[in-house]
């Protein structure tokens, strides 16, 4: 069976490649244009935690304080400050907890490694598990009640019998 790709197989493989390539292109070229100022304000604001609300970002919160924060972000952008400087200004007044995500330094930065560790660790476990469950011989393994695996001659005979049955069916 190896090396023989049917039409269906080709379609599947080509489609998968096309999809993956498109996704890659979108990922790389997605954010080409520099965002306009309102979008920049929105971006920075959605990374800041509204200090008087629970869970809402400064971008989403209707509170007056959040509005004034957005105003301040807008003015500071107009005055030429960078997003990092603006964020640092708020952190100076409110502390690290005003950022929606943990800062990249200190013990909180472990948050960024955690998902990767979890997923890679899980993948490793899965791979090891599947390897352990698969008998090295391949398709057949010992039956639970201890019968010996098929010898290669038996497998050949079985294969021939199955092929003959298929021909008879068709």
């Amino acid at each position, binding site marked *: *069976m190896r090396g023989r790709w*049917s039409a*269906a*197989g080709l*379609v*599947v493989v080509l*489609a*998968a490649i*096309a*999809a993956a390539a*498109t*996704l890659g*292109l*979108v*990922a790389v*070229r*997605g*954010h080409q244009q520099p965002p306009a100022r309102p979008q920049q304000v929105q971006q920075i604001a*959605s*990374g800041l*935690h509204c200090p008087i609300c*629970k*869970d*809402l*970002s400064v971008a*989403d*919160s*209707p509170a*007056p304080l959040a*509005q004034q924060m957005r105003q301040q972000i807008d003015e500071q952008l107009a005055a030429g400050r960078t997003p990092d400087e603006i964020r640092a200004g708020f952190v100076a007044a409110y*502390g*690290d*907890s005003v*950022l*929606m*995500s*943990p*800062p990249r330094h*200190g*013990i*909180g930065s*472990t*948050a960024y490694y*955690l*998902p990767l560790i*979890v*997923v890679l660790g*899980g993948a490793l*476990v*899965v791979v090891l*598990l*599947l390897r*352990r*469950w*698969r*008998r090295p011989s391949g*398709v*057949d*393994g010992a039956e*639970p009640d201890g019968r010996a695996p098929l010898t290669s001659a038996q497998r050949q005979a079985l294969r021939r019998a199955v092929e003959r049955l298929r021909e008879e069916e068709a």
Partner: protein
Amino acid sequence: MAFLGTYGLMLGLVLSVGGAVTAAVGARTDRPALVQTARRIAFAVLATMVVVDGAMLAALLSNDFTLRYVADNSSRETPVFFKVLSLWAADDGSLLFWNLILAGYVAAVAIRFRRYRPPTFPYALSVLFGVQAFYLLLVNGPARPFGTLAQAAADGRGPAPLLQNHPLMAVHPPFLYLGFIGFTVPFAFGVAALLAGTGSDAWVSIIRRWTLLVWCFLTVGLVLGALWSYSVLGWGGYWAWDPVENVALLPWLVATAFLHSIMLQERRGMARLWNIALVIGAFALTTFGTFLTRGSVLSSVHAFAQSAVGPAYLTFLGLVLLGGFGLVAWRLPMLRTPARLESTVSREAAIVGNNMLLLAATAIILLGTVLPLVVEALAGDQITVGGPYFQSALAPVFLLVLVLAGTAPLLPWRAVNRERAVRRLRLPVLAAALMIVGTSLAGLRNLYAVAGFGAATLVLVGNGQEIASGLAVGRRHSGVLRTLARGRRRYAGLTVHIGLALLAIGITASSNLAEQTQVTLRTGESTVFAGHTLRYAGLEADQQAQRVVLTARVDVSGSGPLTPRMNLYPAASEPIGSPSIHRGVLRDLYASVISLQDDGNSATFRFYRNPGVTWLWIGGAVMALGGAAAAWPARRRRAEEATVAAERRRQFSGAGVV
């Protein structure tokens, strides 16, 4: 009322402890008579809980302000509908409701196993009584709902304004509770299987059915919560990654993993240890969730007021973890199963992958939610872990889950015949690729949006194809209905996947393609947004029994007006806004009034264009219905059980069994 309630709760506690002991002794000494008594105790506890909750309801409805709880959570002006809802509006009362639902589940288990009783039944009953005893201990101890005031208040404070703003408060907590509390049953049977030391897998099908039912309730509860957040809170979104929301999601993810890996055990006898661990883990997560929600450990929009129950919940959580996983460690030899995998590309491997991804998502959410706590404990720093973090960490994981949901049902068990698999996968993969290429050609530049739509298409076409081909074949042989009935579990599962795909479409569209704007308009002034002209028509005031409603009417070109409101409650220092939503199949037009100036001649609005949100609700409903269809008991099964029960009766005749 207070008398009835307080003593009723004490009685309930005594009965629960008694029931736990009776059932345990009956199990160890194999005396069916004791087990029968324990069953009867379950009904007694339920009756007691009904009376106690009824007493609280009566107190609420009759404005009995001698009770502290009634004075804090209800008032004379509160409409009757919301007075009833006050039962679960605050910590103490909701614990009464919790106990009622738990007693209901225990009684349901007692009734369900009236004729056919597996050997794990008495142990499970004992565990259930034990959990009930803990929650009754809470209402008899740190959290007393029937506490009285030294002097009856003239009028109550009324429920928190946010909780009486919308009728959804009637259904969101009950379904959530039914889901949360329901995990006690599979947990009880899992622990029972470990305690009883039975090597057989009889408990598996019991646990599977209950977990499926509970999963349905929790799905509905979560979707209703999102609906409430969207329709009531007015911030334009439906999920804020609030700690309490996160912990509600955790048992759902673990239960989903269990419902898949259970197939490994049923069909191949694999993963026994894993399945019990999952069931225990799901219950432990609900206990952890309760601890986080009510123990005032993290700041949250859901957090109940600080109370003394935190240490109690933590102790209980510790006991559950120790007992559950300790038992698993102890019974390890009994749980080992020979596992065999013929091919890496097979349904078994896909299920293993599914479990790994769902548990990875659970771990990410769990760790992210407690990280602020851990960091503050270890280093004293205060950090926030919010929405953006969870979204970027989980998006790839959930995308992979979708890919599996679209391909795994097409894979056979054991080993795959490559040619056949490829033929089955051809259409879904082609459709997904077309969607990806098509949307990006059409100008969509957002990676997650393109990937999300592609994955959802894979799931829709893959599962749809399986349903269609199964029905096409079955129709010729025995008719559509017969085919559906015989393959009910499979078709229900495929339907749930389709619901998931619809949900994914809704989430993808609304998370990545939403637009919003904030604008201040004077009366008569208009603005253009989302292809409509929106004109502020003016403010209307309406005096109601318990609040003043100010409606800011916005005329929308091409359709009816939007009517976002500000509700002024006497108890609240700030008005509570209610958004106005024009729901649509493709997009929602959503309006919130942020503030009013100049006596209402000027108003600040937030307008949102939220694409695809309707598919969230539709997808959630389809998932829940699919799950319910899978959980529905089959007629043939009941006939089987009746035969077994009759056989049992013949064996035990004269011993006082049913």
